[in-house]
C-alpha cells in the first residue's frame, strides 16, 4: 500500500523510573486495547562486510519470522519464515519472492550470518479512538543481551505506528509521551541496531577488505610498507574462520586478494626489505596462494550454476547437472584439505613467523635494503611511474594478432599497477587518483574477461578429457561443447576490443592524468 505514515521510536533511559504508557494516555481522548505481552528472541543478521547496514537496511528475526526493514523508518519491506539452518543463509535458502529478491539485491555472493541475539520483552497495545476504531499501535519494548540477562534491559524503547490516515491523531499521543519523559530520544531502526551492537562490542561496518590506511607521505617507506602488510595480513586473519566454515565464497576471495597484495608489496618495493627475508616470504606466501587456488577455481564455477545452464539452449542444460555435481563433490574434498591445512601447525608457524617479521619496526641494514628509508611519497611516485610505464611499454608491444601470452602478461602488469595505486591511494587527492584508477580498471576489465575465458576454456577442456577417459556421457559432452563455444565467443570479443581499450589507456589524456598525479607538487 502507498506511503505509509511515519513511525516514531522513543528511547527511554532503561534505568529511569518505570514508565506506564496507559497512565500517560489517561489525559488524551484515546484509549488502549487489552495489552498483548510477548517475550521473544530477536536475532540480527548481516553479511560479514555489513552490506545490509550499509544499504540502510536491517535484517532481523523473531520467532519463526525474519524481516528486512528500512532502517530509517523501521518499515518492514519483506518478510519470510526463518530457514531451517538459521545461523547463516543466502537468497537461495528462501523460496522465490520479495524477501529472497531483496536479500540477493543486498548481496548476491555473501551469506547473512547471525550477529547477535537479544531477548525482547514487549507489550503491544492498539490505540482506539472514541468509536473504538484502531488508529495505530504502541509497542513498549525492553531489550536485554542474551549473554547477560541478569544485568537487565540495555535498551527501552516505545514505538508508535500510526495506521494510514491517523498520523495526526497519533501525533497527539506522541506529544503526550514525549512530554512525560524528560530525557527521551527519537531513534530509527539503524540507531537501535547500532546501539544494540555497541553493547555486544561490535561496530557495524568494521570489516572491509579495501585498504583504508591513511599513509604519511613523509614517513619512511619501510614503515608504510609494514603497515600495509599488517593490514593485509589482518584481513587474511579475519577471513580464516569463514573459509574454514565455508560460509560463503567471499571469505576465500578476500583472503586471496590480501595475500596477493602482500606478495605484490614484497615484490614491487625493491630495496625496502632485506632481499633474503623478503624472497623467503615471497616464496612461502606463493605456496600458500597455491594451496588456496584450486578451491577458488571451483568456487568460480559453482557461482555460475545458474548462469551457465541459462546460456545454453534448453535441451543442453541438463547435461551440466553431472558437471556441477562433480565440481560440488570435488570442492568438498579440496575444502576439507584446506581446512586441515589452516588448522595445521605448519600454517600456524608460517603465519606467526610472518607476523613476527611484520612487527620488527627497526630499519633493515642499509647495505641490503638501500631504499628502506626513502620517503613514502617519493617511493610511491617512483614505483607507480615505473609500473605505469611498464604497462604502456608492454601494451604497445602487443601484436596485431593479440596472442594469448601477450594478453596474459599484460594483465599481470596491470594488476601490479593496480595494487600499487591502491596501496598508496591515501597519499593522493582522491579526485586525482580516482580518474586514473578508472582508466586502468577499464583496461583491466577487458583483459580480465579475456583471461577468465581462457582459464575456463582450459578447465572445461581438461574436464572433457578426463570425462572421455571414463566413457563420457554424450549429453555432458554436448553441454560442455556448447559452453565452450559460448565462452570462446566472449573471449574472441574481448580479444578484438583489446587494441581499442588499450588505445584509450595509452592516450594523451590518460598520460596527462598520470603525469599530474605523479608530479611532486601535488603533495601537501
Amino acid at each position: 500500500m502507498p506511503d505509509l505514515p511515519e513511525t516514531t521510536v522513543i528511547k527511554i533511559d532503561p534505568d529511569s523510573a518505570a514508565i506506564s504508557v496507559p497512565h500517560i494516555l489517561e489525559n488524551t481522548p484515546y484509549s488502549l486495547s487489552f495489552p498483548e505481552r510477548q517475550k521473544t528472541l530477536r536475532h540480527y543478521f548481516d553479511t560479514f562486510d555489513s552490506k545490509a547496514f550499509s544499504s540502510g537496511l536491517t535484517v532481523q528475526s523473531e520467532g519463526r519470522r525474519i524481516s528486512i526493514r528500512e532502517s530509517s523508518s523501521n518499515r518492514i519491506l519483506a518478510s519470510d519464515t526463518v530457514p531451517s539452518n538459521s545461523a547463516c543463509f543466502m537468497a537461495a535458502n528462501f523460496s522465490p519472492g520479495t524477501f529472497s529478491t531483496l536479500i540477493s539485491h543486498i548481496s548476491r555472493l555473501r551469506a547473512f550470518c547471525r550477529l547477535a541475539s537479544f531477548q525482547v520483552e514487549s507489550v503491544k497495545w492498539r490505540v482506539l479512538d472514541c468509536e473504538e476504531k484502531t488508529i495505530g499501535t504502541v509497542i513498549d519494548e525492553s531489550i536485554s543481551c542474551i549473554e547477560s540477562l541478569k544485568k537487565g534491559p540495555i535498551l527501552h524503547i516505545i514505538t508508535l505506528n500510526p495506521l494510514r490516515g491517523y498520523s495526526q491523531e497519533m501525533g497527539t499521543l506522541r506529544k503526550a509521551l514525549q512530554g512525560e519523559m524528560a530525557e527521551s530520544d527519537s531513534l530509527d531502526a539503524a540507531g537501535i541496531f547500532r546501539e544494540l551492537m555497541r553493547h555486544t562490542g561490535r561496530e557495524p561496518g568494521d570489516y572491509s577488505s579495501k585498504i583504508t590506511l591513511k599513509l604519511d607521505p613523509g614517513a619512511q617507506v619501510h614503515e608504510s610498507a609494514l603497515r600495509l602488510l599488517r593490514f593485509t595480513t589482518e584481513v587474511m586473519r579475519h577471513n580464516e574462520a569463514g573459509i574454514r566454515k565455508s560460509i560463503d565464497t567471499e571469505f576465500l576471495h578476500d583472503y586471496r586478494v590480501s595475500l596477493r597484495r602482500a606478495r605484490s608489496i614484497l615484490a614491487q618495493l625493491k630495496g625496502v626489505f632485506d632481499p633474503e627475508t623478503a624472497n623467503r616470504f615471497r616464496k612461502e606466501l606463493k605456496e600458500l596462494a597455491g594451496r588456496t587456488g584450486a578451491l577458488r577455481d571451483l568456487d568460480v564455477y559453482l557461482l555460475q550454476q545458474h548462469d551457465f545452464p541459462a546460456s545454453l539452449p534448453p535441451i543442453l542444460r541438463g547435461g551440466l547437472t553431472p558437471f556441477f555435481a562433480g565440481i560440488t563433490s570435488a570442492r568438498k574434498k579440496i575444502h576439507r584439505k584446506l581446512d586441515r591445512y589452516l588448522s595445521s601447525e605448519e600454517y600456524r608457524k608460517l603465519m606467526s613467523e610472518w607476523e613476527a617479521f611484520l612487527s620488527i619496526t627497526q630499519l633493515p641494514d642499509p647495505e641490503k635494503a638501500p631504499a628502506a628509508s626513502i620517503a613514502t611519497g617519493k617511493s610511491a611516485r617512483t614505483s607507480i611511474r615505473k609500473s605505469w610505464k611498464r604497462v604502456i611499454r608492454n601494451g604497445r608491444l602487443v601484436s596485431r594478432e593479440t596472442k594469448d601470452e601477450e594478453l596474459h602478461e599484460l594483465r599481470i602488469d596491470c594488476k601490479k599497477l593496480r595494487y600499487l595505486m591502491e596501496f598508496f591511494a591515501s597519499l593522493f587527492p582522491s579526485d586525482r587518483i580516482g580518474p586514473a584508477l578508472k582508466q586502468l580498471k577499464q583496461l583491466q576489465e577487458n583483459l580480465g574477461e579475456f583471461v577468465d575465458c581462457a582459464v575456463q576454456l582450459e578447465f572445461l577442456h581438461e574436464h572433457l578429457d578426463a570425462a572421455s577417459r571414463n566413457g563420457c556421457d554424450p549429453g555432458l559432452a554436448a553441454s560442455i561443447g556448447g559452453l565452450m563455444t559460448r565462452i570462446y565467443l566472449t573471449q574472441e570479443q574481448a580479444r578484438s576490443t583489446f587494441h581499442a581499450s588499450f588505445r584509450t589507456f595509452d592516450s594523451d589524456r590518460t598520460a596527462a592524468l598520470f603525469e599530474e598525479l605523479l608530479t611532486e607538487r601535488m603533495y601537501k
Partner: protein
Amino acid sequence: MKTIALYSIKGGVGKTAAAVNLSYLSALTSPPCLICDLDPQGASSYYFRITASKKFSSDKFLKGNKKIHSNIKATDFENLDLLPSDFSYRNLDIELSEEKKPQKKLKKNLESLSDDYSHVFFDCPPNLTLLSESVFSASDIILVPMIPTTLSIRTYNQLIDFFTANNLDRKRIRAFFTMVEKRKAMHRDIIAEYGDAPGFLRQTIPYNSEVEKMGVYRAPLTAVKPNSVASKAYKGLFEELMAGKAL
C-alpha cells in the same frame, strides 16, 4: 486494479452489506483492497468505525488524486483501506453537473490509485443520478443486489434499459439475489425463474439476522463470524465473482 460497484436503483437492498463483506474477503485473498464510500449517509464508513477528516468534503473528492490520497484511511483489517464519505457528498450530483465530463470524473480521479490497490469497491447510494453514471463508466463490474421480488425485477430491467439507451456495456452488470427467504413462495419462484439467467450469479445471500448485527459489531461479518451462514454465502459470491472472466 479492478473496480466493482455495489449498485442498485432501489434502496435498502444490501449494497452496503455486500460492499463491506466482499471488500474484506478481497483484502484477504487478493490484497490490497480499497472501499470507497460514495453514500453521504456513510454506512460503510460507519461499519468500519471511520469518520472522514474534518477537512474532507465533496469538492476535495472531485479534485481527485492528491486529495483522495491523503484522505484514505486504514481500516482495522490488514490490506483494507477505506475512503470515507462525508455528508457534503449529498451535493455531489449538483457539483458533478457543473463538471465538463461528469461521467468520466470518477474514473479519472481514481487513476492515481491504480498501482496501489488490486481491487476497489464502490458502495453507492441508491437512485439513478449523475454520480451513478460516473460510477458506471468507472467500474469493471456493476454488482446489483436484488431482493427476489417482482418489483426488483422491474427496476433491474429499468437499469438494463438505461444501459442500452446510453450505449453502455450491459455485460458488465452482474445481479445476485439477497435477503432470500426460502419459506416465501415468491422468493422461490423468482429465483427459479431468474437464477440461471445470463448476468445473474448463482450464489444467493440468505436473509440472516447476523447481517443486521453488523451494526452492533461494526466490522464485516465475514471477519467477525467467518463461519456464519451469511458469511459463507458472501464467500461463495466472492469466489464466483473472481472466477468470472471479468475479474
